[in-house]
């Protein structure tokens, strides 16, 4: 074995490394030249055949060749790895325009979503929500709300009676008496729920509907507080800086009684009834009507949703057609 033989071996190895096409091949080359049974190791073993003075030089050359080949191998390995990764990534390409994997997901009913928004707006204004029965006592639905006995203000034809004392509440205002029985002013309360009235069902009337009722009692409450509160509430619900307008109306439980409209997107929209809580009601619950006053207002949940979303038929809400429900 001569120095020239070693040079040739190294030259062959370099050529092999440079032409290796993949990691497996490269591994084989590594074993072939640098392995414990590899060519270079074999060269090392021939060192004993050399004259003594040549041995160190030869040993040094073999070692440096080994080192240089290792470097080349490692560089080539990195090159090949990059190449292989690129190939793999290209091969793994998918059609990203295929639809995503789907999961069953339900939605909340539009009226639930509306109630949630109403609650958010009112809770932010400091109102505490209360719940009441749908099967209500005549006393709370009418008597407690200052309805005179047998007055045209409430027509029996409009009310679903179960017996002489029980009925399906016609208004969520029925909660007022239940609250005032227990609470002393100041308070800010709100309630929402289902109400019932005999109505021929059409696009704007239904025998079953949902309301929100809001009422507060404190010292020095006036119609101005009502107007400001309605403005803030309506602005929260409908967005922007809405205007509020009052028109006289009659509800036995408020005096003065008004209906209120908001100016929204270029038109006046009637929203509901409002007014100052009738002093007769405050007094019947032992609240000093000279010291305290309060206001109340109510509106329909369906109405809010219809305005917000341009829905034109009230019946859709209880029909539960998926084409409708999935829009919200």
């Amino acid at each position, binding site marked *: 074995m001569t120095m020239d033989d070693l040079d040739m071996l190294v030259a062959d190895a370099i050529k092999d490394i440079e032409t290796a096409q993949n990691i497996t091949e490269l591994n084989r080359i590594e074993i072939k030249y640098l392995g414990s049974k590899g060519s270079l190791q074999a060269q090392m073993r021939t060192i004993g055949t050399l004259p003594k003075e040549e041995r160190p030089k030869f040993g040094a050359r073999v070692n440096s060749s080994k080192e240089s080949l290792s470097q080349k191998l490692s560089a080539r390995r990195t090159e090949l790895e990059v190449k292989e990764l690129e190939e793999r990534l290209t091969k793994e390409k998918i059609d990203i325009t295929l639809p995503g994997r789907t999961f069953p997901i*339900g939605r909340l009913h539009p009226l639930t979503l509306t109630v949630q928004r109403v609650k958010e707006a009112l809770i932010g204004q*400091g*109102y505490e929500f209360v719940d009441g029965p749908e099967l209500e006592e005549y006393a709370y639905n009418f008597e407690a709300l200052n309805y005179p006995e047998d007055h045209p203000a409430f027509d029996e034809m409009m009310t679903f009676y179960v017996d002489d004392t029980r009925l399906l509440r016609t208004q969520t205002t029925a909660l007022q008496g239940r609250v005032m029985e227990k609470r002393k002013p100041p308070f800010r309360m709100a309630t929402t729920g289902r109400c019932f009235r005999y109505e021929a069902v059409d696009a704007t009337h239904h025998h079953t509907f949902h309301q929100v009722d809001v009422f507060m009692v404190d010292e020095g409450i*006036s*119609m101005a507080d009502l107007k400001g509160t309605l403005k803030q509430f309506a602005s929260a619900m409908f967005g922007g800086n809405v205007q509020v307008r009052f028109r006289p109306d*009659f509800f036995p439980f408020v005096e003065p009684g008004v209906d209120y409209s908001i100016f929204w997107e270029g038109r006046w929209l009637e929203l509901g009834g409002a007014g100052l809580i009738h002093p007769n009601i405050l007094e019947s619950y032992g609240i000093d009507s000279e010291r305290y006053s309060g206001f109340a207002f109510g509106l329909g949940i369906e109405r809010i949703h219809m305005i917000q979303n341009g829905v034109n038929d009230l019946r859709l809400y*209880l029909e*539960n057609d998926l084409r409708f429900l999935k829009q919200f």
Partner: protein
Amino acid sequence: MGFIIIEGIMRLSVEWIKEFVPTDASSEELARTLTMAGLEVEETIESEIGPVLDITVTPNRGDCLSVIGVARELNAVYSLQFPSIPNGVSVQPVKADCEISVAIEDIDLCSRYVARLVTNVRSKPSPEWMQKRLVAAGMRPINGIVDVTNYVMLETGQPLHAFDYDKLHGGRIVVRRARKGETIRTLDGVDRVLTEEMLAICDADHPVAIAGVMGGEEAEMNDSTKIMLLESAHFLPVSIRRTSKKLNLRTEASYRFERYVDPESVAKAADRACQLIAECGLGDVTTVLCDEYPVKLAPKRIVFRLARANAMLGYDIPKPEMIKALANLGFESLEEQEGHITYSVPSWRPDIQREIDIIEEVGRIIGYDRIPERLPVGVTTQGGDTPIGKMTAKIRTGIAAVGLQEVITHSLLAPGKLENDDPDGQRIEIRSALSSDLSGLRRSLLPGLLEAADRNARRGQLPLAFFEIGKVFHRTHKGYEESLVVGGIMAGTIAPRSWVRDDKRPEADFYMAKGIAEIVSHLCSVSDLQFCVCDDVRLHPGRSANIMLSGKRIGVVGELHPELRKLHSIREKICFFEMDLERLMDAGTKKQVFVSLSSYPVVVRDIAPRVANSVTYEKVLSSVKEVMPEILEKIELTDVFTGSQVGEEMKSLTLSLTFRSPERTLTDSEVNEALEKIRANLMERCNARFVG
């Protein structure tokens, strides 16, 4: 009397109104003014005599159900001249040789009764101008006398009635409660039985009219009537309302009487009718007249504080403006002192009861647009949702997240097989329901949910997976019960179709419904629901369960009975659950206690007991739990296998058991020991076998 009215709506021609309000304002302007003052003008209609206003009158304002009433409101805003009933009989009354007597026996129901006689009654039509105004008001001209009574009613608000004097026995009018069993055939040809609460207008012998509601046929005027007795009266509103309701007979007259007519105008309206009768040549007005007015009420006096008005309306109104508004409405200032004025309330305003009512008058006439916007100042209150509101919000989101769509269905429904006929939970019926669909309250969400599913199934709209949170109602031995429940229904596959080959899309079955019910209970922090055999006839007897909580039934889950499924268009199994939410909430853990996280590794071992088909999973599970070594952290059922390999009527269950200690790394031998105990107990309790 006799026209059936349309609720709350009154039509009056603008030219008629302007007879009492000297203004050249346009009809649009009048409509706007009335609306902003509280008489909503729904629309303006064109007629032969110009624009007609369609006015809605709120039930407290009976005084506005007339031209003069509407004119009073306009005057209050415009401040022109106070409108009053045209007075006096322009033709000199003639003497007549007949007499009338009026006796009011029940003065609690009738405080004033005026009767006037008109002789030589001539049967001819009313003048054209009068007919045109009636037509514009939506009334049909009939003949001279009837038209005059209707005309005066529209003009003054006072209903009038005309009797044929010669048909009144004894020439007498007796106003009294009907006697038991008395009957009358009213002008609409219906025989009616009167009760002792009803006020009747009688002659010497028997009723000739139902006071304030409708006249009788017997004393009706006709072409041969010679002498007419004209009635103008004030009746107690509540009495008229009850009678009209009881007889289911509502007329223009009863509509006005039940809203209160001004007792002070009773005679004036009769005079006005006589004037028109004379002017139109319909008869000779005589001097024969009776005006019984046994109960004359003094005008109400109310103290009005100007500062209070400002405090309630929320801004300072100049005193002269307030005084002017009230004067224009007919309030009379009796006495003025520092800061307050005592007012006499007009006789036609029964709705004005106390100071706040006067404050409203001031506010609405001056205009609510001047009220500023302010926010209440004062104690800050803590707003918040109700506990039920918070919990249902959480549950709704949770159920929607597993694929069920929320619906809201009817509380009112017809009786049907979809409600469980539990003897202790009877249906609550609506009294005198107008239709079967509205005849009672739901006891279960199933009918509504099924209807929602069916409606969408018929249109091919999927998936059929719905839930509702709502009230159900029962009549029990304790009375009426209203409870909040959550219910869900599902049929077919819920997961959307997928192009991915290995995507599993399970079909709705008992276990899916049960799984969702369990999710709801976890959301309520309840972990110990039990499921036991149920006899709900709506459900498949072998695939349904009562949901139990601490030994009490709180709901059901199951597959709809195949016989009931046949009635619907859905082909797949329909599965349903329903649970009482309030009871779940009450039972829920109030506070979560933190358990520290063990830092030691878990050991997971599977066991696969083979048991007879008749051995329930619950039995297997409880046999494992009985042993319950402390180190057993979790039991998961990962497979249920039946087949010939397992043996006839046998099943193999794979339970994956997770062991862990909070204190140390477990050794093989202690896990094996625990497993051995579990196996032994399963063999003993469930006759289980272990293979391999």
